[in-house]
């Protein structure tokens, strides 16, 4: 600690000396115009810098500029986004006109990295950047959703519920706690999620995939880091007002077909259950017989059809950007609104965002800026149980039932009136629940940049503050289902958090000869505070209903649930010293290293060091390099250390548990010493090795990025079983490896002057493996009925059970199965039952025959994109898919607990009904036997899918006139998001974050019409 401070001062004093060596000299004036080589039109906003100084300006709206330069020796650097940067020596010229060519390569592009920027060509690590125009193509409330299929190694698992954030996994799962979510850094502030941002507020998203890139974020970096830069203005830019918006509808896709009344009746009777047959009889009596098929009750409810609706979604954003010679600004307001797919309940999300970003130069050495982002959202969550009940409700039950007069306030039907165990009708949850979250977020950032030595040494201080408030109100109404009366209740919770980060760092840049060096050294302070209250009350007076929302208060509850009242809070501090060095020799050899020393008050382990080192070799710059058609080729590699402080700290010690016992009929206290305790005194640490290739070929029309990585996590917190004692404890003992190969290829070109096109593809493989568990060879997860197991050498929390080998078609097959006759007899195996593989060949199916059945993590993720533009018409299409992940069809599995429910149509129509009828599904009676309900690959299905992710057509109107007045640049866009998904899984969606499909919200297709106007 002391040592670090001392060396810190040493660096500073050297830099201080450098600061004094500044001089001034004579000036001349240069003017000129900058035009585009595309169309010869003037280019406004082109940045012009005197090389190696901070002196510079930008072109005006007419493309002209005026600049004082120190001498004829000076070199002017012209740069503009999307164009190749040009350099020219002034010499004795006083007018310099420049024609700039569009840059189709992105090598010169500036990439946002931790505490600074770097040029694409200088990178030694795996960083992927996604820009605004790609982000806004996806109609969604969630910016991360737009990355699906675009960045290899980033798995996005969509969520269909309004306002819900997708699950984001960068290079697999290396932690079992806090969802292994990446760190989001929004303009310098740390977040766990960016669900509060509007997609139109974002300029770029940079994903720091490997350790070399993310290690500068130290103890927060282990699950990957996502850097978000919000939109800002530009120098010398006339105010530009932009409206961007769309309106669309969401349509539930791949709606699961459940058995209709006829299929269900047939199935229920085939189970041989007298009870189920009597329920059908009861339905005949209550609702009559169908006139078409008198053996079926005269009700045929398609429950999904009853609860689903097409739902609108819209987004409107207005922004104003601009700037003059010393000021840049950007102001925006946006509104997003999304209805949910469930009808007859409040199920929607609405968000209003305001943002302001302002930067101005106080002097040519000092600039000050700040930005503020305010986000206010209201989210109504439908009761999740609706999905569950809709699946299971029997089709011989109507939604409303006039005969169920005791049901109030609405005459909903109740399956109990037919004899079923539960009421089944999902409308109870739709009509009598209201769950509201109000989410307010306020993010502010203030910073100043000071050039201590122009062009060489600068200092930046940035203070970030974030305040968030989550207000939850869940109300259950009072109702009766005709059998049971349910009392009303209200639960409210209020959680606020205040986070701040203060970064101070120096950046030093030096060029000498062919060497160039960038060094950063800094300090960051972080504090995170959160606190909250919650309370629950029962029996509201008056009864709550939707017309009297103003009376939904705890104060009007007759009873307060004592156990339901409480509070919570936490305060976490962090301090970090960090440095980064980037060295470049002749654009051929690249060296890169970062170091971060992180301290916190969360764990016993107070301080940790995180190193990384990277190197790159640009072969294409070597003289010997002569590969035809290869314009640029770089081999790069990096190794680094990362931490994950997202795990819950626990430093236990033996505790005393007070107990009571009876001695001689007297109640006596006793103390039991509990010698076991959780012990998580450290963060999880990850080491990652990444090697990659970057190449541009065929006149930079083809680009290639490929990476291979091995990412090992140590000290992962897991719950372990101790020998001989019942209490399980959390310990930092597990090792997890994620490894994989990622590749992205893109080709873009133009044909003639009217046609532009590009085609690209990417894929990523992932191999997730448990390396160690601190002694035991496995750890169980999931429930006893649906076992998941982390086994050393296998993926984390893999599904674990029997492997089926078809269905026993007849008695002879059973006899010859290889099972012992004693076992066949004991287990009561009959034709129509599963044949499980006897893995160890002992003639008995038992625990020893269970094997790993699959993992919820995909082996392969891939994406394809196409875009074509012809004159004013742009067409783009994105496709993406995943292979090799498994989904536990927990809906089918629910029959273990409740037998008297509906089943899906695929199952009902393909049940085994006699020899040769099915080799996949057991008989109707068999479905209800314990033998067939054991965890097996019958429940674990392949979740692989291919999806048409996004199709977008837009028409641009530029330079047009309406009634003689010039019309603003306008773009009209039609987007189809996720119109088609192909998969074999027997469920709504193949995207299930944890692989367990019990009540997953369906993921809708979205069709939107969009308008973009630039005034």
């Amino acid at each position: 600690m002391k040592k670090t401070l001392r060396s810190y001062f040493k660096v500073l004093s050297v830099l201080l000396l450098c600061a004094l060596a500044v001089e001034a000299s004579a000036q001349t004036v240069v003017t000129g115009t900058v035009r585009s080589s595309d169309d010869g039109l003037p280019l406004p906003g082109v940045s012009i810098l005197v090389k190696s100084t901070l002196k510079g300006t930008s072109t005006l709206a007419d493309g002209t500029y005026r600049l004082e330069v120190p001498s004829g020796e000076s070199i002017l650097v012209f740069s503009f986004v999307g164009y190749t940067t040009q350099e020219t020596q002034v010499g004795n010229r006083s007018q310099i006109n420049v024609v700039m060519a569009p840059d189709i390569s992105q090598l010169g592009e500036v990439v946002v990295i931790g505490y600074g920027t770097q040029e694409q060509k200088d990178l030694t690590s795996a960083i992927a950047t996604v820009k605004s125009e790609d982000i806004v193509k996806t109609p969604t409330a969630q910016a991360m959703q737009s990355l699906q299929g675009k960045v290899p190694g980033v798995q996005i698992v969509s969520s269909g519920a309004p306002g819900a954030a997708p699950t984001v996994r960068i290079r697999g799962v290396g932690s079992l706690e806090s969802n292994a979510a990446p760190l989001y850094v929004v303009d310098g502030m740390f977040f766990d999620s960016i669900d509060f941002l509007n997609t139109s507020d974002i300029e770029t998203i940079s994903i720091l995939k490997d350790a070399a890139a993310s290690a500068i974020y130290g103890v927060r970096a282990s699950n990957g880091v996502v850097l978000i830069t919000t939109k800002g203005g530009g120098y010398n830019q006339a105010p530009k007002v932009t409206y961007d918006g769309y309106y669309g509808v969401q349509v539930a896709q791949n709606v699961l077909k459940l058995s209709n009344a006829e299929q269900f009746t047939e199935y229920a009777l085939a189970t041989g259950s007298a009870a189920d047959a009597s329920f059908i009889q009861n339905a005949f009596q209550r609702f009559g017989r169908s006139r078409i098929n008198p053996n079926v009750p005269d009700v045929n409810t398609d429950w999904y059809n009853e609860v689903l609706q097409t739902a609108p979604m819209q987004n409107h954003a207005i922004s104003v950007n601009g700037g003059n010679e010393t000021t840049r600004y950007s102001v925006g307001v946006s509104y997003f609104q999304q209805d949910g797919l469930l009808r007859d309940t409040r199920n929607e999300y609405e968000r209003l965002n305001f943002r302001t970003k302002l930067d101005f130069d106080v002097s040519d050495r000092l600039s000050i800026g700040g930005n503020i982002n305010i986000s206010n959202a209201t989210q109504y969550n439908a009761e999740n149980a609706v999905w569950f009940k809709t699946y299971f409700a029997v089709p011989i039950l109507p939604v409303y039932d006039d005969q169920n007069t005791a049901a109030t306030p609405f005459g909903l039907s109740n399956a109990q009136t037919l004899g079923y165990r539960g009421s089944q009708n999902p409308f109870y949850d739709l009509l009598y629940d209201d769950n509201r979250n109000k989410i307010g977020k306020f993010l502010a950032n203030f910073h100043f940049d000071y050039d201590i030595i122009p062009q060489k040494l600068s200092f930046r201080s940035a203070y970030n503050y974030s305040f968030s408030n989550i207000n939850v109100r869940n109300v259950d109404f009072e109702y009766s289902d005709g059998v049971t009366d349910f009392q009303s209740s209200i639960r409210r919770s209020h959680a606020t958090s205040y986070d701040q980060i203060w970064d101070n760092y120096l950046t030093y840049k030096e060029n000498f000869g062919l060497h160039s060096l960038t060094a950063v050294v800094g300090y960051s302070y972080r504090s995170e505070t959160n606190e909250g209250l919650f309370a629950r009350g029962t029996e509201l007076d008056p009864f709550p209903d939707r017309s009297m929302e103003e009376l939904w208060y705890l104060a009007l509850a007759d009873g307060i649930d004592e156990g339901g009242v409480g509070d919570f809070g936490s305060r976490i501090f962090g301090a970090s010293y960090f440095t980064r060095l980037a060295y470049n020799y002749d654009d051929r050899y690249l060296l890169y290293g970062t170091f971060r020393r992180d301290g916190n008050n969360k764990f016993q382990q107070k301080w940790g060091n995180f190193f990384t080192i990277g190197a790159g070799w640009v072969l294409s710059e070597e003289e010997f390099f002569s590969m035809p058609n290869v314009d640029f080729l770089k081999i790069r590699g990096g190794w680094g250390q990362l931490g994950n402080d997202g795990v819950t700290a626990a430093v236990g010690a033996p505790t005393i548990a007070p107990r009571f016992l009876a001695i001689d009929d007297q109640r006596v206290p006793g103390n039991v010493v509990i010698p076991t305790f959780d012990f998580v005194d450290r963060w999880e640490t990850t080491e990652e090795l990444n090697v990659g290739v970057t190449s541009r070929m065929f006149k930079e029309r083809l680009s290639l990025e490929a990476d291979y990585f091995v990412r090992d996590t140590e000290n992962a917190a897991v719950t372990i079983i101790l020998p001989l004692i019942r209490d399980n404890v959390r310990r930092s003992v597990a090792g997890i490896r994620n490894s994989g190969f990622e590749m992205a290829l893109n080709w873009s070109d133009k044909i003639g002057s009217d046609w532009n096109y590009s085609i690209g593809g990417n894929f990523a493989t992932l191999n997730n493996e448990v390396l160690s568990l601190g002694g035991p060879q496995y750890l169980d997860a999931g429930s006893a009925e649906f076992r998941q197991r982390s086994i050393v050498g296998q993926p984390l929390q893999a599904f674990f059970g029997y492997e089926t080998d078809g269905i026993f078609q007849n008695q002879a097959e059973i006899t010859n199965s290889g099972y012992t006759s004693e076992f066949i007899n004991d287990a009561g195996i009959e034709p129509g039952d599963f044949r499980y593989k006897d893995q160890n060949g002992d003639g008995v199916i038992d625990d020893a025959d269970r094997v790993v059945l699959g993992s919820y993590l995909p082996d392969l993720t891939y994406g394809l994109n196409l875009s074509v533009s012809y004159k004013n018409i742009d067409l783009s299409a994105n496709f993406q898919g995943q292979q090799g992940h498994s989904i536990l069809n927990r809906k089918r599995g629910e029959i273990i607990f409740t037998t008297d429910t509906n089943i899906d149509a695929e199952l009902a129509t393909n049940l085994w009904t006699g020899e040769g009828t099915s080799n996949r599904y057991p008989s109707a009676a068999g479905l209800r036997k314990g033998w067939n309900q054991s965890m097996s690959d019958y429940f674990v299905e392949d979740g692989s899918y291919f999806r048409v992710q996004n199709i977008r057509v837009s028409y641009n109107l530029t330079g047009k006139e309406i009634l003689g007045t010039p019309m603003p640049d306008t773009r009209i866009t039609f987007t189809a998001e996720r119109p088609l998904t192909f998969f074999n899984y027997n469920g709504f969606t193949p995207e299930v974050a944890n692989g367990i499909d019990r009540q997953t919200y369906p993921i809708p297709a979205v069709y939107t019409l969009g308008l973009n106007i630039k005034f």
Partner: protein
Amino acid sequence: MMIMKKQPIRFLASLMAILMVAIAPMSCDSQLDEPLERQVLVEDTDYTQSENMFQLLTGAYELLYALQWETFPVVSVRGDDVNAAGDQFPLSETDEFRYDRSFWMYNSSWLNFYDDIIKFHAAMEELLRYKEFAPNPSEADQYIAEIKVMRAFEMLQLTRLWGGVLIPTSSQTAELYTTPVSTREEVLQHISDQMDEALDFLPNVRPNQRSDVRGGISRYTALAVKALANLELKDFQKVADATGEIIGSGAFNLDADFYELFKIPGKLSNENLLELQYSDFGQSSGENEAYLHAFFGPNNWTPAVAGSSGGWGFWEPSMKFIKFMLDRGETVRLETSVLFTRQGIELIQSDPAYATLPAFVSNTTRDGDIIGRTDSEPNPRAIFSSGKHYLPSNQLTPGRTAYGTNKNFIVIRYAEVLLMHAEALVNGANSAAMTADQAVNEVRARAGMTALNGVTLDNVLDEKFAEFGMEWGIRFYDLVRYDRTSELNHDGRTYSADDRFIPYPLAQLDILPQLGNNN
């Protein structure tokens, strides 16, 4: 200096910037020592507060008394005295000697015992720390000795079930990953040695004479556990010595009323050496410490006190036991051991040899509870229930309804000491305390049976069968000890030599691979 003059403001700004960078860390880093919010730190125990030692002792008794319902059946189900009734697959399979290492009950029973044992160690370790400061260190020694007896009793159950097991030596379980499995003989010897260590620190009284923990452990409990371990080891002289000392003390006598011994009047009887205590504290509601006796209760009955709950009907005396008792002309012991249903009585009578039965064989108990269904329908589970675990509804505290509330659970009683003594003597051991005939006849006299002369091992084992039916698997462990296992092949069961021990639970094998096939 020139530069300074020209750009003094810039220089100051630079200096300030640098100072900020430098100073900020120093002021902020101290916050890393801030404690976490809402984390109650475990305060260091004040070991000079010797009075707290007593609560560590009562805490250990709480562990001993908190016997989970599945443990006793796993220990006891395999004898020919009892059948597993009901729908617990693992239990009925075990009863028929079909074991599966995945049966949850095995793992649960294993953990019930070992979890107590590890926590006993933790308590003993704490007591040792108190002892240093205790004004009366012998108090700590006595408490530790009592806990040693509890630990030994549970170790005995473990080795009875699994044969070779691990002997923990402290509350820290990490070392167990490499601890080798001790053989059954080593475990039993360890139990015997532990009791020798404990003996001198324990009070020389009958448990119900103790004033601090009435009904707690005394020197005689330790001697009885020592005798049990040595009986398993067939070290008969040690059995004779230990039981002889208990008999010679004159502290114990058989309860005159065998029927009531297992009911409320028998709580803390002079006959009991170890007894799990429960109570509803005489209150009609509120606090209640109870064993889950419902497991044993008939799942259909008409109680004398209306509203009293029945049980699960899981514990059914075997037809073999009943006929054995009838053959011997047993009266009070049969009446006390078995609750008959009408259907059960009819089944006994369907054998012409038992067409006429004594009057006490009735579906109405002495206390007026009617057992089982009274109509002609079959009983869904057991047709007989355990009378040893029966509490008549008229003995329930008014207001309490749960089966067996307020009833204690007897573990070791003087009758077992007497019969172990006899067993040792007929196996050739010597004793001055009592002869084998005297010991057996004392037990028989209480049961209203005539005296025997020149008892043999057969006589002793029969006597134990008659005396201890449904209790702690005593019968099963007797039979396997003498290899008389053909007795176990009753009602379609087949016992084979490798059925003596149940398999190690799979979950334990996974953590402790050294268990292997050691049992």
